[in-house]
């Protein structure tokens, strides 16, 4: 039959919705049946409606740059990606387990360093980590939790098994797009939400609020929580404004806050200075306090570290938490889970070669054309070598970089990222590669988002999903399937 999905060719990778034999996977059945029932014109109408909604939502939140562009520029695909709720339950448990171990690890690093003494992780790896902050040694944040908001990137291999690609423990972004994508999809495909058991995602902002409120150093009914943004020129400003608005808290810039001689943080309001209990900071560690870190930073608040060290204000995420999202540390996470929790890791790592290790380095240097080489401390997909897509010259350059600074590089096999049907042109679905970024919240309790943000590489064959490099996004559905 000549339908939208019958014409779809899944290709050699794992496809999220349709098996290689052309059958709908269980959580996608309702969705695909519905899509096939829509005339091409109708589908096109929905796509246009989605575009208009993106514009509209963008306009209500975003800031125009000098050139008049809005920053919500990346494309949205209306075909959702579905995941079976039973699979998700296991994955979510794995994410909780992972963040729990990571927080235990960070807390250990800034106190007794038992993991080093017990030989779980070599000392020089920590000593040379760009994100280890001596200023944090001996500080004890509430519940021993340092990374309160974590965005973990997951990928599926050709078997459909989830792997962790990286943990983002500094200032992970994207959650507002997860929420917005759901809102758009509800508007343009409303019929599906009536019949299908799609689990809601809307509780994120109230979970975030509860997570932050639990960190308040003062025992008060209404702790003062703020979102600290670098300001309107930051590319994630839209998200900062959105989260502050949804939580009903103030969106502040560094200059709105000051630390007084009592080492408490105050916000400048027309009612006078008001004490701040919890700061959800969306500014990188090195910019939060010019007294301690970058002296010339005007984004931060002088004295903030002092106030935090004294326990008078909670910072989420805590400074220094980034030590655990180093890509070299990543390789040790399975061992850290075993060590701290005495449990087997539920979620596996992608095979990782540490250039610091002699045997691994030799292998990497001999296979640069097959591997993906990443610097240990960059994010956003910068400074990478994608072996199969690289020139001899690129490879020579990276060989030299690795030899000069082996500690700073890791390598992984080129991933066979899963694909999902994506609307390309009018009435035609094509497979595009994607990943998934769930968000995990941890303080007194732990929450995992239902699904997360699915990012899609909109270019045919491309494996790069980053929004800065031509990626798009789509809604992610965790679907309850009925026993079949």
């Amino acid at each position, binding site marked *: 039959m000549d339908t939208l999905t019958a014409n779809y060719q899944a290709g050699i990778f794992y496809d999220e919705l349709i098996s290689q034999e052309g059958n709908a996977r269980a959580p996608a059945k309702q969705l695909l049946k519905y899509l096939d029932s829509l005339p091409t014109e109708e589908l096109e109408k929905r796509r246009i409606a989605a575009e208009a909604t993106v514009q509209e939502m963008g306009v209500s939140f975003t800031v*125009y740059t000098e050139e008049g562009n809005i920053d919500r520029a990346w494309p949205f695909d209306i075909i959702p990606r579905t995941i079976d709720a039973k699979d998700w339950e296991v994955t979510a448990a794995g994410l909780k387990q992972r963040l729990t171990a990571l927080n235990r690890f960070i807390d250990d690093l800034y106190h007794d360093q038992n993991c080093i003494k017990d030989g779980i992780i070599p000392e020089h790896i920590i000593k040379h980590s760009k994100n280890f902050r001596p200023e944090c040694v001996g500080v004890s944040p509430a519940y021993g939790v340092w990374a309160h908001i974590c965005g973990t990137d997951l990928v599926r291999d050709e078997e459909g098994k989830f792997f962790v690609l990286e943990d983002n423990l500094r200032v992970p972004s994207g959650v507002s797009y997860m929420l917005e994508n759901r809102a758009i999809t509800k508007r343009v495909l409303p019929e599906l939400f009536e019949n299908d058991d799609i689990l809601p995602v809307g509780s994120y902002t109230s979970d975030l609020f509860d997570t932050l409120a639990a960190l308040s150093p003062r025992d008060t009914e209404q702790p003062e929580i703020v979102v600290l943004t670098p300001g309107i020129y930051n590319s994630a400003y839209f998200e900062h404004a959105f989260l502050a608005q949804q939580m009903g808290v103030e969106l502040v810039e560094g200059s709105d806050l000051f630390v007084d001689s009592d080492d*408490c943080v*105050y916000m400048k309001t027309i009612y*006078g200075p008001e004490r701040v209990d919890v700061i959800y900071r969306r500014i990188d560690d090195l910019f939060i306090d010019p007294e301690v870190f970058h002296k010339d930073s005007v984004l931060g608040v002088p004295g903030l570290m002092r106030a935090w060290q004294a326990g008078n204000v909670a910072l989420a995420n805590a400074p220094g938490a980034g030590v655990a999202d180093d890509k070299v540390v990543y390789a040790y996470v399975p061992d850290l889970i075993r060590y701290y929790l005495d449990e087997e890791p539920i979620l596996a790592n992608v095979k990782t070669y540490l250039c610091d290790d002699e045997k691994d380095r030799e292998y990497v240097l001999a296979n640069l054309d097959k591997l993906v080489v990443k610097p240990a401390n960059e994010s956003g997909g910068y400074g990478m070598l994608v072996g199969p897509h690289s020139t001899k010259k690129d490879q020579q350059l990276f060989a030299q970089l690795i030899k000069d600074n082996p500690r700073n590089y890791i390598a992984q096999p080129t991933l066979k990222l899963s694909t999902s049907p994506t609307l390309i042109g009018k009435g035609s679905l094509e497979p595009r590669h994607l990943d998934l970024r769930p968000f995990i919240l941890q303080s007194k309790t732990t929450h995992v988002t239902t699904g997360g943000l699915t990012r899609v590489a909109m270019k045919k064959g491309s494996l790069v999903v980053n929004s800065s490099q031509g990626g798009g996004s789509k809604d992610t559905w965790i679907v309850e399937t009925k026993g079949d």
Partner: protein
Amino acid sequence: MLSRVAERLYWSARYLERVENTARLVSVYDDLLFDLPPNVAISWYNLIEINSGVEAFNQRYKIRDEHNVVKFLLSDDTNSSSLLSSLKMVRENIRTSRDVMPGETWELINELDMYARENIKRGINRSDRHAYLNTIVEGCQKIIGLFAATMDRDAGWSFLILGRYLERADMNTRIIDAANTLMLQSRAEEAIELGQVVWSKVLKSQSAYLSFRRTMRTSISGARAVTFLLTDPNFPRSQQYCIGEIKNAASALPRAGIVLVTADNLLNKTQGIEHSSMLNEDFSEYLNQVQLDIISLHHQITENWFNFKQGDAA
């Protein structure tokens, strides 16, 4: 409300008012110079003095002619109070407080800013000047109207009112002062002829001419024009009215104490004059004192609601 947000609202309103006042002032002066008898010594340069721009002007220009004065007032970016500089400041302040303003504000200010920049030559050359300045005034009024029709009357609104009426009161006294000085400098034999023209233009510059006619029901004299512009309770640009609005807006805000006291003092001082002979050096001194009071009112608003230092909290 964050102090920063309040301060941006306050300055948005002040600069918006400044844009409108500058456009009105240049427009009226244009008109005034056409009507003056040819033997009267009055020049465009008076406008520079009204706006406290003497130093900045002289650094930049040698010749005090119409072209340079108008250019300085409308387009000069070394003059932080020029029409285009003020518009830029309105835009910057609105850009960073869009979440507390009506959504359309941003579009309107962009439209106005673009028009003002693209057509600035029409403002500087005399032939199209009137139409250009009129469009600017209309653009300002569109934004003020949008605020009036759609904004909540909360703290944000109070800061807009504070900014608008403080700027307006400031300009009001400057214009009266300038006219007074002009009259004091004029030769006795031309004073009567000049007075008629000057004081009616002063009223027109404040859109007060018709209101004066309706309210006072008498001929225009210096004493009456000044009394009207200072004490009329209903005319929305009079000193009395502006300070009253400042007082009302402040009293809706927390911790308004000191600002209310200063506003009350200013209100008590506001009085008309009996006879045109009282338009003398003493009166000039009185206006000068009012100006200083307005400046200290601004500092009190800033200190009270926007600025905090270490030691204020602990």
